[in-house]
């Protein structure tokens, strides 16, 4: 894998830090007048999701991480692993473990395309599309005029996610949901 110098750092670059693949979130050049230059860098550890702040001497190099983000269709869960297939026509499949799937589990629906992050060809993260259409599996009937809860009620979707929906939504309806905020957007 190539290494990258601080002057090549930019948001989105994948590098290795302390043995983990990281995504550069922010890179700030710091330099007192005629003094030594540094780069203050914010990196997201792709294994843990935590954001680190590190300082590098300008000109220093660090190793790049063999990280790819690929579109893959979700196929099925075998009880232990979640299986995805590349959408490039290769039918190549990848199995992601619980750690890689993480919170995305509640947004997983067959045939929907997700972004799967591969590190050294192994899935380490699965990101849902920003918006997804899901069916309401369970929700209590809405009572007209009940505004105690701001005119909304919880609904469990077919994938297990629970979102707040307007009172007029019924079981079996298809909803458009924003996965980043876990919020109801509208009827699909």
């Amino acid at each position, binding site marked *: 894998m190539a290494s990258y110098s601080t002057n090549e750092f930019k948001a989105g670059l994948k590098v290795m830090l302390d043995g983990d693949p990281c995504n550069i979130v922010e890179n700030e*050049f710091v*330099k*007192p007048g*005629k*003094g*030594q230059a*540094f780069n203050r860098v914010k990196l997201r550890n792709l294994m843990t999701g935590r954001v680190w702040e590190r*300082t590098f001497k300008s000109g220093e190099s660090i190793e790049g991480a063999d990280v790819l983000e690929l579109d893959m269709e979700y196929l099925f869960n075998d009880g232990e692993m979640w299986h995805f297939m590349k959408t490039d026509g290769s039918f190549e499949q990848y199995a992601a473990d619980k750690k890689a799937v993480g919170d995305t589990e509640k947004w997983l629906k067959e045939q929907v395309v997700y972004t799967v992050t591969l590190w050294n060809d192994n899935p380490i993260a699965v990101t849902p599309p920003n918006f997804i259409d899901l069916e309401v599996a369970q929700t209590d009937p809405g009572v007209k005029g009940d505004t105690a809860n701001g005119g909304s009620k919880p609904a469990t979707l077919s994938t297990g996610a629970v979102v707040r929906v307007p009172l007029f939504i019924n079981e079996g309806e298809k909803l458009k949901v924003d996965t980043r905020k876990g919020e109801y957007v509208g009827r699909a």
Partner: protein
Amino acid sequence: MDGSVEDWLPSATIETLRERARLLGEVRRFFHARDVLEVETPVLGHGGSTEVQLDSLSTEATTPGGRERLWLQTSPEFHMKRLLAAGSGPIFQLARAFRDGEIGTRHNIEFTLLEWYRPGWALESLIDETEALIRTLLPGAGPRRLSRYRELFRDTLGVDPFTTALTTLQRLAAERSGAPMEDTDRDGCLDLLMSLVIEPQLGRDGIEVVIDYPPSQAALARHGVDAEGERVAARFEVYADGLELANGYDELIDAAEQAARFAEDSRERARLGRPAVESDRRLVAALAAGMPEGSGVALGIDRLIQLALGRASVAEVMAFTTPRC
């Protein structure tokens, strides 16, 4: 080419550029009212800056002397000092300067320096004038505070930049930055601690002037002795709102000492594997001919305009930053 053709748009709005022009007009009026002559000196020079921590750009040109390598100036200092030696009297310039690799919210490779020189003036008088100039553009700024470099380190970090053991400074710098510092020298550690820990707090409620720097951090300043008997450089820095704005010196006028410092810089550059830069022999000759004693200061006018207009980065007050040029 980095970026896309969509970047044809300016980095600053046209309204901001109007404001910028108005502020530059105020700067010029400030100096005209004080009988300081506006000058324009070349962006190119046969000599460049040998400063160890500056990276110079160069180009080639066909001159009567043949094909020559010319250096884009990292500040207009050398040419302006030659004018002083030639008897110009007080001069100022809004000059383009170039420093390779410096890009960020506070930096751009090509930027504008406001630089001026006051023959016969002591550093204290120039500090007062620098403050007055800054207040012209920042009329709402709070009171001035004068801080000594070593006191800032003592108060903020509990170390003395002059006397604390290098290993202690390295450990502290490593703690604060998360980067290994064993091979970093004293000035490197001090620069890092200054940038990361001290600087963000400077000038938070007004204009902060820092004085009494270690001599190693002022290549072109005269050296003196502080109240505690420590050798210090006659240098000041001005900060506002955590931003480094200006850097001033009681200027070195000794030609032999200047030549020695150039040589020392060049040796250090070679030791660190940094590219060699031709030093300015004509500056040394000008000093030998006799430059009047006095003080000079360089101020990052882009940053001052940024503060005056309440913007978040220098890019927002520049027509086109280097990535968009």
